[in-house]
């Protein structure tokens, strides 16, 4: 039996808060279950107090059960019984009182004074979950549970790689809103998070992290979120135990249904604990988005101070600022063709009082720009017999073209084209062949890039570079295969060939900028090894633990043979 007529009648009542105490409380993280045994006492925010021998709550189904030697104290008086179940979503409490003999009562809408005696109950109302294949994530002595939001345990012993770790408290958010769990920390190979405490509007978390650059370190994160999913803020500091430290603040605010503003501010300090920093820099991004009918306008602002504390050497004194305003259409279908078209246009400006570009003897401190572009795409073209899924080929293609003019007399043309052919050979094997070409030309009205031959590490000039006059062409061909033996074991391998102009040469080009976990941010950087082979094996070794092994082979490009080391990524 399931709820029928009541399905549309869920009452909008304040979120119930349940305070639970017991001799032994267990939490099953993978199933969102809280189980308790021995001297169970539950106090609910509707004024009801229940004691019993066993407690079971499914946090996602939002219902709980107390069984054996139940004593209910409510506005209806004091009653003894065998079991009671509260279906919080439906405002229905099912009770098996034992007065002269057992009975079945239903309380509607927290009305304890008028039980519906003898009314049929849902068939599974008093079922305990089968825990035979589940593992305990933590045990505790007490818990505070807010329906559909969070559970906060006290006197905790958490399971960590099979070991019991005593903790004063542990907080778990299981609501569906993302605001309270917005992440302000960049990725790490390993992150064990201790949500120390929190409530429906805040979380305080300590992170034990590891990444290739910083090695092991601690980070702290403080989350805030409003009740109506209108605003959030996250503050973090990481690595807290290293001298090079980033202090982040992320905020978001939604005003009405068509406007939102998001900010990201990062303060960098080089300091020992909380001593006066040796160096400090700050970056702020602000993005405002206004939605219109099948289009949007996004205003983006950026400000950065490379040196907040001086001295000017060796740190750069620059403090550049940027703003852009871009109007973008939806990705619209082109009449009845299989093509889709998205267009955009925008204006912007860059400013740095120390100067951005010296051209013709003029130091440009402010550079204005305007741009226009479009993206034309052709997704999901099936080639072959549609009745034979494993014989079908899929063609996908996309072209992006853009021109950007600057107040310095030049403009940049960019074209980015991608085409791929893919096929699912069996339930386990999928392959694709893709080709990508990125053409970028920086064209000056007068002069421009001068032919030159940069010096190689051994001091000889690299003459093929002399043909470069501000136009680069990067061509990438990739053959990739994924073998998915099961959802718990996936192997991928990709062979990539770069045929670029200006041509690559080991050690000639500086490393392009990367993010905190070493991933390249730009896709159009020069000097990529002509041949690359990447392999990855991803295995789920526990219900919430995935180990990801990655390694690359560069076919003896300069000193590069294998990628520096295995990348081991552990995630939930």
């Amino acid at each position, binding site marked *: 039996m399931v709820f029928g*007529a009541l399905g549309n009648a869920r009452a909008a009542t304040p979120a119930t808060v349940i305070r639970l105490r017991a001799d032994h409380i267990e939490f099953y993280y993978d199933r969102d279950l809280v189980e308790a045994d021995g001297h169970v006492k539950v106090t609910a925010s509707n004024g009801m107090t229940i004691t019993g021998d066993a407690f079971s709550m499914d946090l996602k189904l939002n219902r709980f059960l107390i069984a054996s030697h139940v004593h209910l104290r409510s506005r209806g008086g004091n009653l003894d019984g065998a079991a009671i179940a509260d279906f919080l979503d439906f405002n229905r409490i099912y009770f098996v009182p034992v007065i002269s003999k*057992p009975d079945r009562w239903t309380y509607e809408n927290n009305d304890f004074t008028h039980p519906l005696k003898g009314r049929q109950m849902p068939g599974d109302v*008093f079922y305990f979950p089968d825990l035979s294949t589940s593992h305990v994530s933590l045990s505790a002595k007490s818990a505070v549970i807010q329906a559909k939001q969070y559970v906060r345990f006290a006197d905790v012993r958490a399971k960590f790689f099979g070991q019991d770790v005593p903790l004063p408290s542990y907080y778990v958010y299981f609501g569906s809103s993302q605001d309270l769990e917005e992440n302000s920390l960049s*990725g790490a190979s390993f992150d064990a998070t201790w949500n120390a405490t929190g409530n429906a509007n805040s979380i305080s978390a300590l992170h034990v992290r590891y990444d290739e650059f910083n090695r092991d370190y601690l980070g702290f994160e403080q989350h805030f979120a409003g009740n109506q999913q209108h605003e959030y803020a996250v503050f973090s500091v990481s690595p807290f135990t290293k001298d090079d430290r980033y202090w982040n603040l992320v905020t978001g605010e939604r005003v009405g249904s068509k406007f939102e503003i998001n900010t990201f501010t990062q303060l960098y300090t080089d300091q020992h604990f909380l001593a006066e920093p040796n160096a400090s820099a700050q970056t702020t991004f602000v993005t405002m988005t206004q939605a219109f009918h099948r289009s949007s306008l996004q205003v983006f602002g950026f400000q950065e101070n490379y040196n907040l504390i001086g001295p000017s050497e060796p740190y750069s004194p620059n403090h550049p600022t940027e703003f852009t305003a871009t109007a973008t259409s939806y990705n619209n279908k082109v009449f009845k063709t299989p093509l889709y078209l998205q267009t955009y246009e925008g204006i912007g400006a860059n400013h740095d009082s120390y100067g951005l570009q010296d051209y013709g003897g003029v130091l440009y401190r402010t550079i204005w720009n305007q741009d226009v572009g479009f993206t034309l795409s052709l997704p999901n073209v099936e080639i072959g017999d549609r009745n034979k899924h494993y014989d079908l080929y899929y063609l996908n293609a996309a072209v992006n073209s853009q021109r950007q003019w600057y107040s310095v007399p030049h403009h940049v043309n960019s074209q980015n084209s991608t085409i791929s052919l893919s096929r699912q050979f069996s339930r386990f094997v999928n392959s694709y062949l893709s080709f990508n070409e990125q053409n970028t030309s*920086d064209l000056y009205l007068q002069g421009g890039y001068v032919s030159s031959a940069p010096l190689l590490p051994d001091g000889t000039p690299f003459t093929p570079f002399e043909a470069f006059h501000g136009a680069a062409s990067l061509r990438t061909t990739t053959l990739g295969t994924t073998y998915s033996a099961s959802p718990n074991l996936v192997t991928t391998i990709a062979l990539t060939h770069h045929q670029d102009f200006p041509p690559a040469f080991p050690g000639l080009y*500086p490393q392009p900028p990367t993010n905190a976990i070493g991933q390249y941010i730009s896709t159009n950087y020069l000097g990529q090894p002509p041949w690359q082979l990447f392999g990855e094996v991803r295995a789920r070794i526990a219900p919430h633990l995935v180990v990801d092994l990655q390694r690359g082979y560069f076919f003896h490009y300069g000193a590069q043979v294998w990628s520096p080391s295995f990348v081991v990524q552990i995630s939930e």
Partner: protein
Amino acid sequence: MNLQSRLAAILCAFILVAAAAPVTITGQLLAYQDGYVFFTTGDGFRLAPNVVILDEQTKQPAKHAPEPRDYARAVFNAAGEVVEIDLSNKPYPVLPLPEAAQAFAVMASTPYPNPELAPHAPTTANGVPETFTGKLVLVKFEVQVPPTTPINAQVYIATDVSGWNPQAIEMDRIDALHFVAVRRMASGTILHYLYTRGTLQTEEVGPNGLSLKPRELIVYDTDTNSTNSVVDAWADANTNNLLSQPSVFPTPYNPAPFPNLPRGTRTPDP
């Protein structure tokens, strides 16, 4: 004695034995108190004064009194009282009460139907019953990314189950515009999720650039579930933005189209 007579004799013997067999039920215990034993069906049965509690495996007296969560078999006498309870270490199937035992359940009030309970489980649009037994179901996520997605991009799924970790589920590229991931999930799971490129700044947004409410997936009791999604845009898709993203160690700034020209390359000049 011919074959027909033999069969008749066997049938009679079976009926006599069956008539003598006591009524039993199995299930999980809810409570054992006040002279009654309660099963998780919610039914309470009166205990006989001389009820015995046995270990189902050894048939010896059990070492502890019946407790909630114990699996047990109850044996009734002709008066409908429980005369024997066998406690089991192994789970018994939790089934609706057999008809023979229904009359033995004690209830003070007269039962009456509940109009809020639908007689049959609703079905999905394609006729699959919306039932949830908790069995593990293969769930396939396939997503089409915007055509402006960088060719070297990695795509992930952030979910409410993993605390919105932006790299919770890594997806595998299957062509220029599509990624796929397969997971096993218990039926009944209600998953909220969003696609990301690995960070908060590269999360998916709506076609109008505004942040999205999480997508929702309900895992039904089918052999496989699959979901095909289209990402309209990424949060960092500021198309004329030549800047690097947050979390980057500050680098000298200039709106140049080539981020890593060789050292010593002459800058443009008239």
